[in-house]
């Protein structure tokens, strides 16, 4: 009897797998929050572009993997010279662009020189700043000479802004992107969706999905119902907000809370009184109750941070205890700074819910120590202009979503108006260092310096709320870069 049931079980498993093989779906509808302005990642900073095209349509010399590691892509392998200034890339052969033109060393030279050029519209020109020359050795070999050794060069070449484009299609990429990736652009219904189809001529491992639709659903309420009704199969980062417990309880869905590179901070204008006084900045840091902010702004899913660094990164140092929530201490520090009665300031907030909700809570918390904040909500346009470009602000709440971007604290004229030579020398050394262990140590130093200086109020790491149909596998759990890599995604039944 026992034997019979085992046999039956085995038969059923066999049956199940064989039907699965027959009926596995090959289409996917992925919900994304923002519609991109266009689809050329080499001519715009919008994360929404990379979220569609990265690794799917376009590929670079290298690429960033699911855990943030550098992996070979169009460059099969590379050598670095002794002095760290010359990189020789060996390219994959037999690769074609979606329009049929072949990929070779000339395309690499064209792409890099285009990005470096004076009139380039590449949003991350600093990625290419170290490059001195790009030389074509033969059709499958390129040599890149740098002005100085750069530890992050291979990582930089993996960014969406550094993907390889062809001279034949560079102008059309905004509307009809042509890359070398496993998916081809199919259709863009403005305001609603972008559709990709599998590229049958792909050089690498073929993808399991035939057709992928990126549907734009900026509204949290609409995304919840779109998921529940089955209109959308997956959100790599869902604005589920308070509806998350309901979705988690539903066996049809899988919820994976991962991490992003989004350090969410209460940015302070270090160049403006009274925020130029470290005691005031420390007082504010002590007055913030991260737990309450995380609960109200991310429904409790954010991970607290104590400096400008992702907890998912191996160089992370936990500094959340630097300024514990302590109102008495905060008031004391304010009094020391001569502001015992508090003061008034503005809090300019960009549109995302984490900023608007978080800002409201912060204003309420700072009122406890006598700081009266006037909330000024703004659209991205105004925020970029007033806060980011003109530095005309006191406080703002913002998530910095670029990976490994602690170097912004060493930039001159950045909107924090923070200037510390010690940090600058650490960052300069980091740029020259290639040894991973040494790099991690330098990153640790940098984190400590900005935490000690209480440059900004460090709030939380923006969570990545991955929600998808439980039958789907292969989606990224974390998001070390802004991307929805679908190359390994498949339906299991």
């Amino acid at each position: 009897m026992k034997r019979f049931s085992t046999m039956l079980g085995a038969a059923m498993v066999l049956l199940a797998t064989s039907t699965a093989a027959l009926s596995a779906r090959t289409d996917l509808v992925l919900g994304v929050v923002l519609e991109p302005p266009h689809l050329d990642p080499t001519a715009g900073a919008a994360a929404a572009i990379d979220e569609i095209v990265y690794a799917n349509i376009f590929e670079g010399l290298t690429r960033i993997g699911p855990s943030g590691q550098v992996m070979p892509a169009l460059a099969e392998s590379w050598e670095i010279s002794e002095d760290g200034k010359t990189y020789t890339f060996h390219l994959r052969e037999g690769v074609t662009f979606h329009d049929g033109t072949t990929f070779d060393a000339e395309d690499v030279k064209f792409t890099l020189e285009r990005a470096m050029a004076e009139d380039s519209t590449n949003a991350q020109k600093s990625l290419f700043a170290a490059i001195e020359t790009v030389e074509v050795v033969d059709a499958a070999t390129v040599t890149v000479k740098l002005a100085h050794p750069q530890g992050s060069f291979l990582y930089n070449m993996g960014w969406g802004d550094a993907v390889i484009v062809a001279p034949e299609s560079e102008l059309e990429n905004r509307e009809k992107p042509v890359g070398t990736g496993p998916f081809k652009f199919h259709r863009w219904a403005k305001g609603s969706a972008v559709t990709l189809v599998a590229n049958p001529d792909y050089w690498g491992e073929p993808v399991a999905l035939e057709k992928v639709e990126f549907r734009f659903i900026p509204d949290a309420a609409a995304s919840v119902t779109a998921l529940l009704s089955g209109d959308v199969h997956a959100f790599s980062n869902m604005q589920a907000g308070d509806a998350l417990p309901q979705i988690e309880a539903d066996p049809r869905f899988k919820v994976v809370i991962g991490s992003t590179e989004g350090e969410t901070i209460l940015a302070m204008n270090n160049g403006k009184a009274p925020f130029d006084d470290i005691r005031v900045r420390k007082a504010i840091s002590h007055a913030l109750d991260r737990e309450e902010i995380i609960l109200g702004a991310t429904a409790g899913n954010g991970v607290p941070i104590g400096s400008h660094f992702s907890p998912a990164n191996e160089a992370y140092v936990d500094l959340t205890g630097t300024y514990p929530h302590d109102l008495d201490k905060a008031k004391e520090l304010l009094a020391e700074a001569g502001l015992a009665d508090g003061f008034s300031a503005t809090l300019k907030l960009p549109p995302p819910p984490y900023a608007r909700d978080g800002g409201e809570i912060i204003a309420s918390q700072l009122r406890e120590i006598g700081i009266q904040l006037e909330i000024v909500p703004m659209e991205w346009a105004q925020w970029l202009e007033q806060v980011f470009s003109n530095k005309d602000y006191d406080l703002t709440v913002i998530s910095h979503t670029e990976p490994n971007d602690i170097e912004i604290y060493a930039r001159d004229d950045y909107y924090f108006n923070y200037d510390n030579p010690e940090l600058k020398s650490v960052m300069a050394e980091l740029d020259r260092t290639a040894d991973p262990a040494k790099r991690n140590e330098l990153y640790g130093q940098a984190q400590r310096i900005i935490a000690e200086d209480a440059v900004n109020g460090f709030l939380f790491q923006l969570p990545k709320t991955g929600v998808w149909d439980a039958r789907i596998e292969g989606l990224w759990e974390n998001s070390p870069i802004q991307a929805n890599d679908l190359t390994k995604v498949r339906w299991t039944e």
Partner: protein
Amino acid sequence: MSLDPVFVPTPKRNFFLRALHNRSFLIGLIVTGSIALMALVSFFWVPYDITRLEVANRMQGISLSHPFGTDHMGRDILSMIMVGSRNSIAVAIVAVGLGMGLGVPLGTWAAARGGLPDDLLMRFNDVIFAFPALISALMITAIFGPGAVNAIIAIGIFNVPVFARIARAGALALWPREFILAARACGKGRLVITIEHILPNIASLLLVQGTIQFALGILAEAGLSYLGLGAQPPMPSWGRMLFDAQTRIALAPHLALFPGLAIAITVLGLNLLGDGLRDLLDPRLRHTR
């Protein structure tokens, strides 16, 4: 003056008697009065301090301690609605006042002068009426930034041609009347006639329209706030409360219920009041109603 067949000023006693029998007017008055009272009370007392957030208490249902529940920041919704009523009423009243203050002088002036100024004013009205009001209000708040004051300007601008048109039409109908001709014969100037004779006679017309525009102003303010362009936190507004409720509707529908009811009841009260006033003040319409 009392010979005018269109606007017959009714004896006072008679007016109150009829008012007591006009159902629209009575209901409208009671509802509007209650909302105004609620706004007044909120200056002195609200159940909870709405500037203090207690996030841990968020989205509680209806209970004795929070009769309308709490919102996503743990604030008491009843208190939010009470304080929010100040915002709705203030924005709508000032916007209508702005429209009247500019529109009525313009309209009566055009009627008194006639000719080119009149033509120009009417063409100007045409241009403003040709703009979709909400979209234009959106642009105005986009230029000046969101906030209660800019919402007032945005709503007020579209009230100017409404009152200009009504005042002009009312005044035009009066100018050929005998009592005006008599006043002119006495050597009174256009300005004096307008102030002494025209304005008192179109006042009831303006009052009725004012009430209706007030109701429209409340709706417009709610719409702008819903889009995030009205009053800003920590000042609560009914429209934004609805916006905040939308993403949580599956979880806590009561967040959407009460602010919406507050808007609907206020607008309903004002519309009934306006209808009632029209019946009472404009006898011509009494026959058809």
